C-alpha cells in the first residue's frame, strides 16, 4: 500500500485500517527513541502522538505529503521526544536535521491537548464516556440520556456540562502545575 493510499484511507475516516499500516514504520522510530533515552512505553506514546498529528493533518484540505510517511512520522516523533527531553531538563543527544523541520505550532497545540488528555483521565469514566458520546460520536442528547440512564434530555445535558467543566477545571490545574 502506498503512502498516498494510506492518507486516502485516513481521509475516508477509516483510521483503524490506516493505523495498522502506519505501525509498520514504528520499529525504526522505537529503536531511535530507545537509543536516545526513551523507555518502551514512552516511545510508543511519542509515536502515537505523531500518528495523531498525521491523522489531523491528513484531514486538512490543503495537506500534501511532502516526504515519505515513514520520514514524516520519524521526524515528528523525534521532535516530540526532543521537546519532552527539554521539558524534563534532560540532555538532547541528537539534533534535528534541516529536512526534519516540522510544524512546531501544531506540536505545541498537541502538547496542550496532551495535558487535556491527562485531565480527562481524572474526571471519571462515565463523565468521559458522556463527553465522548457527544463530541466524538456526535450522538444527540436524547440518545445520550437513554444510553446513560438519565431521566430526560435536560438532565443529560446538565451532566454533560458538569463533566466538561470538570475537565476544564482539571486542565487548568494541570496547566498551572506544568
Amino acid at each position, binding site marked *: 500500500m502506498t503512502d498516498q493510499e494510506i492518507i486516502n484511507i485516513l481521509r475516508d475516516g477509516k483510521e483503524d485500517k490506516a*493505523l495498522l499500516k502506519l505501525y509498520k514504520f514504528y520499529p525504526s522510530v522505537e529503536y531511535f527513541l530507545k537509543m536516545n533515552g526513551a523507555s518502551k512505553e514512552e516511545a510508543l506514546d511519542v509515536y502515537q502522538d505523531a500518528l495523531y498529528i498525521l491523522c489531523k493533518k491528513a484531514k486538512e484540505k490543503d495537506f500534501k505529503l511532502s516526504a515519505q510517511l515513514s520520514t514524516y512520522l520519524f521526524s515528528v516523533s523525534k521532535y516530540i521526544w526532543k521537546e519532552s527531553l527539554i521539558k524534563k531538563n534532560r540532555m538532547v543527544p541528537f539534533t534535528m536535521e534541516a529536512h526534519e523541520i516540522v510544524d512546531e505550532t501544531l506540536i505545541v497545540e498537541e502538547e496542550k*491537548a*496532551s*495535558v487535556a488528555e491527562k485531565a*480527562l483521565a481524572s474526571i471519571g469514566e462515565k463523565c468521559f464516556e458522556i463527553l465522548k458520546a457527544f463530541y*466524538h460520536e456526535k450522538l444527540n442528547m436524547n440518545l445520550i440520556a437513554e444510553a446513560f440512564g438519565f431521566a430526560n434530555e435536560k438532565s443529560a445535558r446538565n451532566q454533560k456540562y458538569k463533566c466538561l*467543566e470538570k475537565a476544564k477545571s482539571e486542565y487548568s490545574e494541570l496547566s498551572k502545575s506544568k
Partner: protein
Amino acid sequence: MRPVLVEIEQIERYLLQEMSSDELLLFEQELKGSVDLQEKVEVQKIVLRGIDRKVFKVAASAAFAKGLWIKKMWWGGAVVATSFLIVLVVVLLINKTKETKTHQPQNNLKNEQQIQDSIPPLKLHLSPNNKPHPPHSSIRDSEPSSDSIPINNWQEGKPKTEQNFQEEIKQNPRPTNTYKKKYDTLWSGQSIKDESINIVVAKFNASIKNTMILLADGTIQSDLEGFNAKLWSINDKKTKITINNQVYFMKWDSANKTFKVKLKEQNTSYHFVFSAGGNASVSSGVELNLNIKEKK
C-alpha cells in the same frame, strides 16, 4: 453576566461551527473584546481536542495490540507449520527406515530358523479347482503340494495356457486395472473357508524385468495400478513376508508361484509386504494392502 451554561453552550456551538452567520458575527465581536472569553474558548477548544486525542489513543493502542497479535499469529503459524513439516519428515524417515529394514531380513532377524518355526499361520500352496485349502501344509515346503495347480490352470472352468497368459501380458505389459478385472473374473468362483486365502504371485514379462505381480483372491480388494511403484523381484530361495508388521520367512514355490497364507481374522485389513532374501541388490518384493472378507 450571562449564565454559565449558556456561555459554555455558545462556546461549544462556536467551536463546533454550529452558529448562524449573525450569531457568529456577534460572538466574534465579543471575543475580540474579552480576554476572559478568549481564554475560555481556548480551554474548551483544548479539552475538546483532548477528548478527540484520548479516543484516538485508545484506537491506536488497539491497532498496535492487533498488529502485535497478527504478528504473533503469523509467527505462531510459521512455527506450527515448521514443526508439522519436521514431524512429517521425521515420520517419513522412520517409515522409510522401517521399510528398508523389512527388506533386509538378515540384518534384523538373528535366527531365521526360529522365525520359520513360529509361522504356523502361513501356508504355502495353491487352491485346486477353486476349493478351499485345509490349513495344514508347511510354509517351508518348497515342493508343490499335491493339491497345487500350475499357473496355466488358473481359470474358471477351462484351463488357461501359459502361452495365452504370456500373450495377454505382452498386450498389457504393465499391471493395470485390466489385469485386475481379468483376475477378478478368474477367481469369481472361489470362496474362502477356514479363514484362509490364496495369494498368487505370477511372474510375467513386464517392462520392468523380473517383476512380480501379486494377485489375490476375488474377495481381496487391491489396486493393481498402485503396484507399479512397489514391484520388486522375488528370488526363488527365501522370501520374507510381513503381515501386519509381523515378519515370517517362507520359500517361494517357483513351480506354482504361489503362497498360501492362513489369516486368523476375517473382515480385517492386512498389510502384506513380500521381499526377497539373499542378494539385496537384486530384489525386494511386492507390497499390497489387502482387505480380507469372507465371500458368500
